[in-house]
């Protein structure tokens, strides 16, 4: 069943999950080395103090309006909807936020916390570079030192974002351990944090990590769903029939879903990256193929081998290339409230082109996964029905990847 959380849009407060230990059912928690327990307890105390503090909430909301540029539009993709002949497809335009993705909602929130906790240094991990850019951006704005950990592999894939971070004054540290991607960047950021806990605030970029990160990042991202709900009510007087979002760690998805969890008529679809196909082992779809385990401070579904070693993942989109997933999604899967599906590299690429050509919007490859599934879903629905797709980011960062795949030299 859906969480019975009362919706309280006037604050950031949320309802029944997680419990006090940060557990979403059997998922989540705080599985970290001892050194981080106290800093996490401090972060938790600070967060739960400030999220109900009207001054904090007002400052957060002001930043979202004036710095991020919210509310982001809810756009009816009319030509696209007509072309697929089914449901009306609405796009929640997180791509129009400052820095080009939903990630900034969360970094603005965490930066406010960092400031109130008197931290002077920001660290972050990044895969696609969107979260790294969003972290470097808020650090620049607050005059804080910023170090971003990024897998060496991703540094090559997302070169434009690396340069953006450096322009913003951040130090980008290449991570050469393990698979040299997002999971290893997260390990390295945790190691940095352990070493500099007194001065440093670790801005995690998704709803993963140890408690309180999954709840804190969720709360900062629920603005997406709250706005979408109001906007669709205003435009059509009704609720959507379905929500679709891509799931890497799951922050844009939970941000959209959370305010609708109690609306039983709203179906929800979280889309994982099927890479070269679920049967190939070259994918990033732990909810579709994985098992529960413990990684990066929480219990959740993981992609692992028979010995419990985390295996390398693959996706065309660096932001979905992660072997775990936020614990709340693990819980929502088990209780059956959200359906988790997957989309291959090829399908995502096709959707990338489709939106670009039909609506004049270049989506991020991550968001293209959600879009690809929404197009299939829409075709099976009727024109009276409505789908909201989270267009989590813009695709400028991906043009090199796409050109590369298609053998085009820029």
């Amino acid at each position, binding site marked *: 069943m859906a969480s019975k959380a009362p919706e309280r849009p006037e604050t950031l407060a949320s309802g029944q999950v997680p419990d006090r*230990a940060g557990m979403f059912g059997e998922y989540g*928690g*705080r*599985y*970290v*080395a*001892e*050194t*981080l*327990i*106290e*800093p996490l307890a401090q972060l938790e105390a600070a967060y739960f103090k400030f999220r109900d503090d009207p001054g904090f909430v007002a400052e957060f909301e002001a930043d979202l309006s004036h710095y991020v540029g919210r509310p982001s539009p809810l756009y009816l993709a009319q030509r696209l909807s007509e072309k697929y002949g089914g449901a009306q497809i609405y796009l929640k335009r997180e791509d129009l936020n400052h820095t080009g993705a939903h990630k900034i909602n969360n970094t603005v929130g965490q930066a406010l916390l960092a400031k109130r906790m008197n931290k002077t240094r920001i660290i972050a991990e990044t895969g696609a570079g969107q979260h790294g850019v969003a972290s470097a951006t808020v650090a620049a704005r607050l005059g804080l030192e910023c170090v971003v950990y990024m897998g060496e592999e991703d540094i090559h894939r997302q070169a434009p974002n690396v340069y953006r971070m450096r322009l913003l004054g951040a130090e980008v540290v290449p991570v050469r*351990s*393990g698979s040299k991607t997002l*999971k*290893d960047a*997260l*390990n390295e950021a*945790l*190691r940095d944090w*352990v*070493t*500099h*806990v*007194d001065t440093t605030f670790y801005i995690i970029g998704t709803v993963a990590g140890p408690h309180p990160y999954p709840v804190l990042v969720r709360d900062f991202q629920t603005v997406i769903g709250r706005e979408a709900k109001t906007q669709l009510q205003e435009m059509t007087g009704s609720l959507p029939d379905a929500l679709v979002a891509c799931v890497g760690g799951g922050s844009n998805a939970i941000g959209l879903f959370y305010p609708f969890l109690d609306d039983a008529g709203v179906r929800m679809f979280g889309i994982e990256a099927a890479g070269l196909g679920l049967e190939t082992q070259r994918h990033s779809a732990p909810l579709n193929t994985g*098992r*529960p*385990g*413990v*990684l*990066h*401070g929480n219990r959740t579904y*993981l992609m*692992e081998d*028979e*010995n*419990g*070693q*985390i*295996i390398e993942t693959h996706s065309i989109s660096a932001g979905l290339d992660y072997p775990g997933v936020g614990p709340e999604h693990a819980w929502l899967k088990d209780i059956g409230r959200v359906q988790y599906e997957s989309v291959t590299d090829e399908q995502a690429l096709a959707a990338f082109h489709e939106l670009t050509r039909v609506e004049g919007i270049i989506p991020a490859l991550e968001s293209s996964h959600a879009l690809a599934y929404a197009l299939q879903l829409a075709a099976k629905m009727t024109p009276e029905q409505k789908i909201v797709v989270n267009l989590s980011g813009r695709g400028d960062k991906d043009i090199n990847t796409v050109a590369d795949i298609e053998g085009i030299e820029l």
Partner: protein
Amino acid sequence: MSRIQERFDALAGQGRKALVPYITAGDPHPEQTVALMHTLVEAGADMIELGVPFSDPMADGPVIQAACERALAHNTSLRDTLGMVRSFRQRDEDTPVILMGYQNPVETLGTREFARLARQSEADGVLTVDLPVEQAGQALETYREHGLDTVFLIAPTTSEARIKKICEASSGLIYYVSLKGVTGAGHMDISEVKNKVREIKQHSSLPVGVGFGVRDAESARDIASIADAVIVGSALIRQIEAHLSDPDSMKKKVADLLRDMREALDLDIPEADLSATNS
């Protein structure tokens, strides 16, 4: 009485401190681990911390990360690690072995199955780096049922209330992390360590071991002056790393470093007492 406790009691009787080397099982090759464990004992180890390799060792510095990668290149599993302990026991029934690792491989095998196999292999204790005492409830019971000591970390950031809680859940020894950082870091402050060890001892009569920042004989001796056990990992593994292609000199270098530490620890012990153990 557990092997760990027995060993600490014997050492205390002689006024000596325990020397506890850490190596990662399967590094540099699974076939070398058991021999390396015997080498450690011959060079003066009182007990061994055997690392279970994990793909994402987030509390470890670059040296132990690389050790894990080398071990995993040969697919060294938790089950394999327990097999190594069993072979080690064929020639050594006295030296306690503590398994140190991360939670995910344990859960994949199953906590109960792991405990059963660990018991069967005659391992003595379990330290799971990313299983803080709050999350350990069920596992603690299972380990105790199987006669395994439950070892926990205490860190410079640990509050007094938590120190109490951790002491209550611990058996065998308590492992104090000497610095804010990862394994192999080098910025330990000995007077801070001393204060914290004293604080821990107010809450527990268990021996306290100190690790994470021990690099050479001198720092080992510093630690020995304020704690019951000196735990050394990265410094030894650096020797392994430096002699990957030559197993004989690798063993010799590891033994030399450990022997230096042993000598430094035993400097003030009369010869007569020393001949009683480590024969």
